[in-house]
């Protein structure tokens, strides 16, 4: 029987693969909801810290924090790249890296240097083969990222910005649009974009404890951290969604392959039987 044994082995192995991919698909589907909940839970904080920032800048129009001042020339650009720790999520990471590479190319063309902070193993694995500086790295953020895990990496960037070693900072992540769509996104983190929407127009001021500048600094740092944290959660939700889709495709493909192989197997069996019968008939005729 022509390759009958091999085909059955193959079918069985694909069936096992299919089991694994469909299990992964279901796991990811359940994780999407959890990570979406996490994402939604951070919204009030982002909203309120933006409100406090608005109040502060209204109360101190003359004071300019370095984080809000646009620098005249850009000598070095920083990127905070948020990727996943694990693969099997389709082109999610690679699409993001392509976006980063395009942006890096653009800045390098203008003569600026580049410095990276990578979150997630995939980013460090990819960018260490590209000739750029990696200033800091954090991985293993897990299913429920904690903001304290991000503080260190963000501080490296903020310090470099404060010391004017870096003049512009981007954060790059996959924006979770919906389960089918994740959009690679490049956002300017520093200098902070202007905020000028508020209903309070009267001249008034706070009582500051300890003082305005220190407080503004703290608020801005918290704001940036919250922003990056939000991006990490978006990316996490995107990871699960992308993995679910990738695994769904893999499961479907495995099903198709099994169907085809079964057909091949049946044909091979049929051919073997026909051959056997004709041999017997031929043998009988000879006798």
């Amino acid at each position, binding site marked *: 029987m*022509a*390759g009958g044994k*091999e*085909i059955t082995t*193959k079918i069985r192995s694909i069936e096992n693969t299919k089991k694994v991919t469909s299990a992964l698909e279901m796991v990811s589907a359940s994780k999407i909801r959890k990570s979406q909940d*996490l994402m939604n*839970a*951070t919204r*009030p*904080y982002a909203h*309120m*810290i933006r*409100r*406090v920032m608005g*109040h*502060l800048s209204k109360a101190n129009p003359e004071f300019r924090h370095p984080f809000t001042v646009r620098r005249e020339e850009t000598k070095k650009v920083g990127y905070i790249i948020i990727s996943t720790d694990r693969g099997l999520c389709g082109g999610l990471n690679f699409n993001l890296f392509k976006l980063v590479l395009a942006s890096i190319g653009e800045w390098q063309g203008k003569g600026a240097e580049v410095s990276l*902070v*990578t979150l997630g*193993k995939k980013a*460090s*694995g990819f960018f*260490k*083969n590209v000739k750029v500086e*990696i*200033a*800091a*790295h*954090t*991985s293993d953020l897990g299913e429920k990222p*904690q*903001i*304290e895990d991000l*503080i*260190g*990496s963000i*501080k*490296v960037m903020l*310090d470099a910005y404060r010391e004017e070693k870096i003049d512009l900072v981007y954060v790059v992540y996959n924006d979770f649009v919906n389960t089918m769509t994740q959009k690679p996104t490049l956002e300017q983190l520093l200098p902070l974009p202007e905020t000028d929407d508020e209903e309070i127009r009267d001249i*008034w*001021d*706070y*009582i*500051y*404890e*300890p003082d305005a500048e*220190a*407080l503004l600094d*703290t*608020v801005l740092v*918290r704001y940036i*951290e*919250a922003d990056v*944290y939000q991006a990490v959660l978006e990316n996490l939700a995107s990871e699960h969604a992308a993995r679910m889709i990738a695994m769904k495709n893999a499961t479907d493909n495995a099903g198709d392959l099994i169907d*085809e*192989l079964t*057909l*091949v197997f049946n*044909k*091979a069996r049929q*051919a073997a039987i026909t051959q056997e019968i004709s041999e017997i008939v031929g043998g009988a005729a000879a006798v």
Partner: protein
Amino acid sequence: MKHTIQCDIVSAQEEIFSGEAAMIFATGSMGELGISPRHAPLITQLKPGPVRVQQADGEEAFFFVGGGILEVMPHLVTVLADTAVRADDLDEAAAVRAKEEAERALQDQTGDMEIAEAQARLLEAAAQIRALEQLRKKGRR
């Protein structure tokens, strides 16, 4: 006239409390604070410690914050709580860790290993596909 003030307590990870409060107690960087409605606008850093909210119905709610910022506006009180205990030297240590992590990731050769492994897998898969195609051709004949 209203004897309560809207109070929102949030951390970066979740909304902790939102409701009307008759009085709010917290530990500011300059000392204990008690905020009643119509308190003057104030913004302060919080020390790690409890935040106590006396609600409109007389019940009290307790929260522990690891520091943060408290803002008092004429119509509302906002507490931006830190989930982590923050101090300059702790932050510094975290930054140093992140830098070391980057160096380790750079020296780590597993990335190349992964590529080699992936290439091997790819070759294997390609060989399997070729074998399958041959089988299929045989089947048709």
